[in-house]
Each structure stands twice: as C-alpha cells, then as structure tokens.
C-alpha cells in the first residue's frame, strides 16, 4: 500500500489532465463512441502483459492468458474502430449516446 500512496500525486495530476482533455467544445462534431476514452483505458493491455509475464502457478497463468486475449482484442477494437473512415452521411451519432 505504501507504493500505492507514492503513486497518488501522479494519479491526481493525471485526473486533472483528463478533466482538461475532456473540456467542452473539442469534440462537438464527433459521436460519443469516437471520444477516445476507451482507447486510453486499453492500457489494461499493459497490465495483462505484466500479469501473464509474472504468473507463477498454472491456474494463474491460464487466467492471465485469458486477460491478455480479452485485452488485446479490446485494444484493437477500441483503438481501431474510431479510426475507420465513415461515409459522409454516416458520420453522425449512430444512436449510442454518451
């Protein structure tokens, strides 16, 4: 827990950065599903990599590989889908509100 407390200043600074990054007016023409928060949350892929690399027992290793499989698929989806070119009339919100 001491390590966690040591990371607290960095965490608070990151929270402030996220608050500023989500300021109004920067994405008024983009649908919510292209906002990019999911892509940043895909950092879980790094955690899954660490878990899979350090897992000791066989059970822990298999669970870590499941985490890595899900995280890799999710990372590609969350980072790749918003980059898809859209048709001019399909560039609006497809109904998913944010």
């Amino acid at each position, binding site marked *: *827990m001491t*390590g*966690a*407390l*040591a*990371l607290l200043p*960095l*965490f*608070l600074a*990151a*929270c402030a*950065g*996220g*608050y500023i*990054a*989500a300021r109004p007016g920067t994405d008024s023409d983009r*649908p*919510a*599903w292209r*906002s*990019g928060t999911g*892509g*940043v*949350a*895909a*950092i*879980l*892929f*790094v*955690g*899954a990599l*660490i*878990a*899979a*690399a*350090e897992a*000791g027992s066989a059970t*822990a290793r298999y*669970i*870590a590989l*499941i*985490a*890595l499989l*899900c995280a*890799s*698929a*999710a*990372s*590609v*989806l969350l*980072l*790749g*889908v918003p*980059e*898809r070119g859209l*048709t001019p009339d399909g560039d609006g919100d*497809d109904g*998913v*509100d*944010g």
Partner: protein
Amino acid sequence: MIPPVGPAWLGAQLNGIGPSPVVAGAYLFSAALLLLGLSLRSGGHGNRWAMAGIVTGAAAAVYSHDVVNLPEMVSVVVIGGGIGLLLARRSAVAALPWLMLAGHGLLGVAAMAMAATLWRNPGAFGLAADDGLLLTLGFALGAMTLAGALALAVGRRPGGLALLGSGAGWAAAALGFAIGNSAMVVAGGMAGVAGLRLAWRARRIASRALPSGAGLP
C-alpha cells in the same frame, strides 16, 4: 505519513525492486502519449497517439520482466489482435458502436481476469495483505464495466460509452496502484475522469435537446 519519493513511483516496483530509469521513463512517455491522444481526439488522429502510447507501455512491460512464457503470450496477442482487427475492418459502419460496446465489455473481463491473476499469485507481484482492497476494487469495477456493456447491448437502459470507458479506466488505475505501475495509474485516472466528464456533459445535453428514451438504435 507521506511515503518517500523515489524511483518506485515512476514505474513498476516488483518484489521491492525499483525500475530502471529507462523503464520508468518509458512508462511516463507512454502516459504522455496517451494524454496527447486523449487531448487530440477532435483532430482525427488522437487514437494513433494512443496506439503509440499502448505500444510503448507494452514494450516497457515486456522489457522489464523475466517473461517465462513468451510463445504463449505472443500467440494469445496475435489471436486476440487478429480477431479484433478482423472485426474492426470488416464490420458494417452501423455495427461500429456495437463493436465499441464489445470492446468495453472485453476490457471489463480483462480487468476481472487480471485481478484474479494477482489474487492467485500475490508473491510474484510483491502484494501485501492490504493490497487486497485494490484488487477487489479493480475486480468490481471490471465487473461493473462488463455489466454496463451488457445492459447497453440488450437495450434495457440508456447510458453512455464514455461512462464504460471511465469504468475501465478506474479499474486500470486500481490495478495499477496494486502492482505499482505508473502508466496504468496515469492512463486509468485520465480515462476515468475524462469519461465521467464526457458522460456528464452528454447527459446534460440530452436532457435539454433530446426526447426521453433516446438510446441505442
């Protein structure tokens, strides 16, 4: 009591061993790229910066650990990434929001599985008894993200993808606190707060401009 500031708070610390300056710098660089990606999302290329941040963080993670099962890990990443790439490139435009829902749900599953891995093998990650709270929090947030994605998918209640991204971000931050990984803590905090703010703003706009019941197609 404020803990001493040292290299441990700049990167992963496992078994009481702090990271090298290169690894700590790579984690911070990864976090900076993710912040850039989140800030430039309106420019159309924000996700590419975020991709670079994820790749940098992954490279630092692999470099800084003694990977004993690299073939299995590479195979799993190729399979998962291939499935995601296939879906992202071949799906119809109308299905893209649903793919984002699926991605957030998979992130929730990944957070739950990662928390379970840390729980099963605390010695390898230098976890103390009081880190169980962080693992429980990460598991619960992953489960909530998955449940939210499922609830959105079946259309039982309106909600927001930004809120799901926020949940996955908080889960990443909690698990990052547990293993002492600065990139996960920074990116998770950014995604958590940004998602909450975007969801709050969308809710206010929807309450002013949209009729009630607006939600998924």
